[in-house]
């Protein structure tokens, strides 16, 4: 018999105690070659920033390969592990320094896998932050091409001078598209 999954619970207000660590949001050191900033705000249904949210990213390298290197919790400054974690500030802002991931298969759209946690959010949410630029790959992406334009827009980061901006709206008219994978039940 297939075992039934353990239920999730909210991360609560005090997750920094157990989950935050030194340089958790620095997948590469700030200012290093090819470093970009991925930043945005986590917003609630009233448009207010969520000051007690945690955003995790998991991504490929620029060449599309996936790191199998430990070291995310104790950054050595040169090993790229592909994983990072950022807690939001008072206005709901989070920021990572990382490198732009490449597509894991040639011709596919590149994205970062994103998990969102917050006080008031009873289980984690999954989404994707697609990188803008490769319009052909974005247009051909199976997920994006299946979504109406207003929903599709929530999944594509915007380029700015330093990198990319990706806001996460938990609720409301511009609500981010959140994802459910096979095997996940209500």
């Amino acid at each position, binding site marked *: 018999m297939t075992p039934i999954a353990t239920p999730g619970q*909210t991360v609560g207000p005090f997750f920094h105690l157990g989950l935050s660590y030194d340089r958790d949001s620095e997948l590469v050191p700030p200012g290093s070659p090819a470093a970009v900033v991925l930043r945005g705000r986590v917003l609630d249904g009233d448009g207010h920033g969520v000051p007690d949210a945690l955003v995790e990213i998991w991504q490929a390298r620029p060449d599309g390969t996936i790191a199998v290197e430990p070291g995310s919790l104790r950054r050595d400054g040169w090993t790229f592990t592909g994983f990072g974690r950022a807690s939001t500030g008072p206005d709901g802002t989070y920021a990572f320094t990382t490198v732009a991931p490449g597509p894991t298969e040639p011709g596919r759209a590149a994205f970062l896998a994103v998990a969102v946690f917050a006080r008031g959010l009873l289980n984690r949410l999954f989404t994707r932050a697609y990188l803008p630029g490769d319009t052909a790959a974005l247009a051909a992406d199976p997920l994006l091409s299946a979504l109406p334009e207003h929903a599709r827009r929530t999944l594509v980061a915007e380029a700015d001078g330093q990198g990319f901006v990706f806001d996460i709206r938990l609720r409301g008219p511009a*609500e981010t598209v959140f994802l459910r994978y096979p095997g996940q039940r209500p």
Partner: protein
Amino acid sequence: MNPLAVPARELEPQSVISSEMAALDAGYRGAGVTETQPRLDYPPYRSSLARHPGRAAYDVDPETIERCAPCFGARDVDPLDADLTVGHPGAPIGERTVVTGRVLDGDGRPVRRQLVEIWQANAAGRYAHGRDQHPAPLDPNFTGAGRCLTDDDGWYRFQTIKPGPYPWRNHRNAWRPAHLHFSVFGTAFTQRLVTQLYFPGDPLFALDPIYQSIVDPRARDRLVAAYDHDVTSHEWATGYRWDIVLTGPGQTPLDAEAQDGGGA
């Protein structure tokens, strides 16, 4: 002065929250569909009102990156990180306890050499966190954060202090059942889980909207550890057993490559 005695807003009584929970429970029992996870939309947990998506999650097949998981190793985790009772000048106050169990994927296979993180209040119900205003004492010998890697059979093990219940501002006289926060990774990023472990027989279960947001009684019981006298040790610590099952089948990067090579 007790900061909790000066409410910033009029807090509703427990009876209002309890009757809302009872109505949702009756609705669930009448629906005849089995749920296994918490509801994101659970109004008795007031903070969830503005923080739950209005639309259902979109069903999608995981792509390559989502079928893999971050890798953690001995470089990340010191073996002493699994003992929350050490690392301070003295011993912490409270009931010393060991919590252990296995992390399994949705097929029941052990999740090996993967990261488990925990955090918790101290024995008095106070978090060593700047935002915790509960006027209970901090323990200079207890921080309340730990980590370990599962072993080759998926086992984790922490030695800690049993946390106390603590009050919060969801409603008037709201108290959380004692719990440990758990953060777990699987072999795929899609299995990422953050949850809470509870202790058996807690009188606050029926009153707590976070625990009751899992409306199925068998499902929420999966968060309650079992007292295990074989984990309890002579003249030292009580012991609890709690297994964690992640969603969906696990997949190693190698499996994913094989599948892609098969023409996917």
